[in-house]
């Protein structure tokens, strides 16, 4: 079994993570453009960041047999720095049609300001013009309202929900996002977002259609193995393997595949490390000690 982690910030991760991800069966990853913790003060640092996502990080991942893709966009936090935001908007057209750019992201709301809404709307239009999927960051504060507002803005901008992944959902937002036709992603992230056990229960309740599990591992306390760990726990708790594969591999491939920039053939049969072979070799999904040993950590992320 193999995985596609459709939200992970590898620029903040070490080669140890890459090695463990490859060993755990992560075949491909999508790295959204985001805030880097330290606010940027110059447009040039955005350019070099985007260049890293389509350049060095892609190479770094390939050294471990992992295929790296990205989404390009102006994140909601830095959208509030209006002068800088306008300069970043001028850069975006240079990147949206690059190879391996599978969408516009991660965009959305943070503080839910007027500036955030303005740049969300502008970027939604770029996505429509370029026929690219959108990866949405939903706010941590006042999440429910922010999620509704995001969907309203997108629909008003003429975006088709089937082209959008709304991320960082929880028990409170899942139903309305699914009901409005969006791909509904869950971030397994210790403490501030969602744990693996809650994810298992959500899957039991809502099934696997249009559901996606990702790690959003970044510079904070997070787990680059969140996707394979969640899959292992799902298996352990009796969820059918087909459903596990749907939410950890096939669904993200379907939605981001609409860009024409990500295709299973990119890693199937490619030379080098075969993640699925390693995965079977580690007997990762067979439960018990093997799982814990292969992933060096316990499966339950609180």
């Amino acid at each position, binding site marked *: 079994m193999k995985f596609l982690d459709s939200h992970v910030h590898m620029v903040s991760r070490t080669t140890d993570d890459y090695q463990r991800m490859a060993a755990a069966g992560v075949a491909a990853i999508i790295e959204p453009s985001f805030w880097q913790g330290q606010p940027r003060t110059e447009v040039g640092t955005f*350019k070099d960041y*985007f*260049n890293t996502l*389509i*350049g*060095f990080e*892609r*190479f770094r*991942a*390939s*050294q*471990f*047999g992992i*295929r*790296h893709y990205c989404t390009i966009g102006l994140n909601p936090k830095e959208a509030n720095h209006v002068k800088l935001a306008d300069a970043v908007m001028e*850069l975006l057209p*240079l*990147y949206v*049609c*690059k*190879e*391996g750019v599978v969408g516009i992201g991660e965009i959305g709301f943070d503080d839910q300001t007027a500036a955030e809404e303005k740049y969300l709307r502008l970027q939604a239009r770029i996505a429509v013009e370029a026929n690219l999927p959108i990866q949405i960051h939903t706010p941590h504060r006042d999440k429910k309202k922010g999620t509704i507002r995001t969907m309203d803005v997108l629909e008003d901008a003429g975006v088709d929900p089937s082209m959008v992944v709304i991320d960082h959902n929880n028990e409170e937002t899942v139903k309305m996002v699914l009901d409005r036709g969006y791909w509904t992603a869950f971030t397994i992230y210790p403490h501030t977002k969602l744990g693996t056990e809650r994810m298992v229960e959500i899957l039991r309740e809502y099934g696997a259609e249009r559901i996606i599990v990702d790690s959003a591992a970044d510079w904070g306390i997070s787990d680059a193995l969140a996707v394979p760990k969640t899959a292992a726990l799902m298996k352990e708790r009796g969820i059918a393997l087909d459903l596990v594969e749907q939410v950890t591999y096939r669904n993200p491939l379907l939605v981001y595949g609409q860009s*024409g*920039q990500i*295709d299973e*053939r*990119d890693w199937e*049969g*490619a*030379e*080098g*490390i075969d993640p699925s072979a390693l995965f079977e070799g580690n007997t990762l999904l067979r439960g018990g000690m093997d799982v814990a040993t292969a992933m060096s950590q316990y499966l339950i992320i609180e």
Partner: protein
Amino acid sequence: MRDQLLDVLKASSPPAAFDWLRERIAEQEAHFQRNAFYFAFSGVSRHFPKHDRIPDDLAEKVDASGKVPGFSIRGWDLFRLARVILLLTLAEQDQETCLTTLFAVLDTADVRERVAIYSASPLLPWPDHLRDTIIEGLRSNIVDVFDSIALNNPFPAAHFSEASWNQMVLKALFLSRPIYHIYNLEQRRNPALALAISELAHERWAAGRKLSSEAWRNCIGFIDDGIAKDLRHLLNTGESHDRQAAALVLAEDSNSLIPEDLRETLKEEIAAVADEKLSWQTLGEAITPLVVLNGSPTPSQSVKRS
């Protein structure tokens, strides 16, 4: 050259992709616009098949034509060929337009775009204005990018200073690249490089590591007492490739500092050189390169022609 490359691209590509490129070229020739060039250059990835390479027989015809000695398109994927053709179209503009556009494209280029730009370097005019940017490209640790400059590219041999040349060769050895693909390696040999190779070998040996046997090719003609000792060391590494490299050096270098017993010990290998059974080419081919995964399509995915 461009017409020849266009013929190869046409024979290797889906007609719709090739027609798209022809239209972009016609537009550029009728009325050059920088933004249109940017989008065409990036847009190659939206129109050509991502994994397909030029068939070897077509590539060999271009290489064999010898229009640009040392230039080779063997193993290129279609993205690279299509983009090099676009750059040759750009090169028809005046110097200011061409260089400004080229540097702007490089400024936001992804890995495969960067590879195309460096691959085109020996075909572009105004090499003196490109030299610094090509040297900058070699600072990359992305193997595809490094290879596009260092291997099968005549630009460095023709335009690099000795210091830049030596840095390139040493870095190629660091990255375990097959240096028999470096064009004019023998013509650019120099004593500073020979000494640096010797020093690098000592560092590696002290750490219990290996140095590619190909490295010693750079020392021919510059053997001093120190390098003569290194050659003796090569007999004791237990690696047949090291022995062969030492023999290749001795066969080409008649320096009197080389102890006669070395020649005696290696006489079989030296005879193989005389019989043309052993050469730097055969040695380079025999050394299994370190597997480097580099994000490009693999040879097994090369296009099959019907």
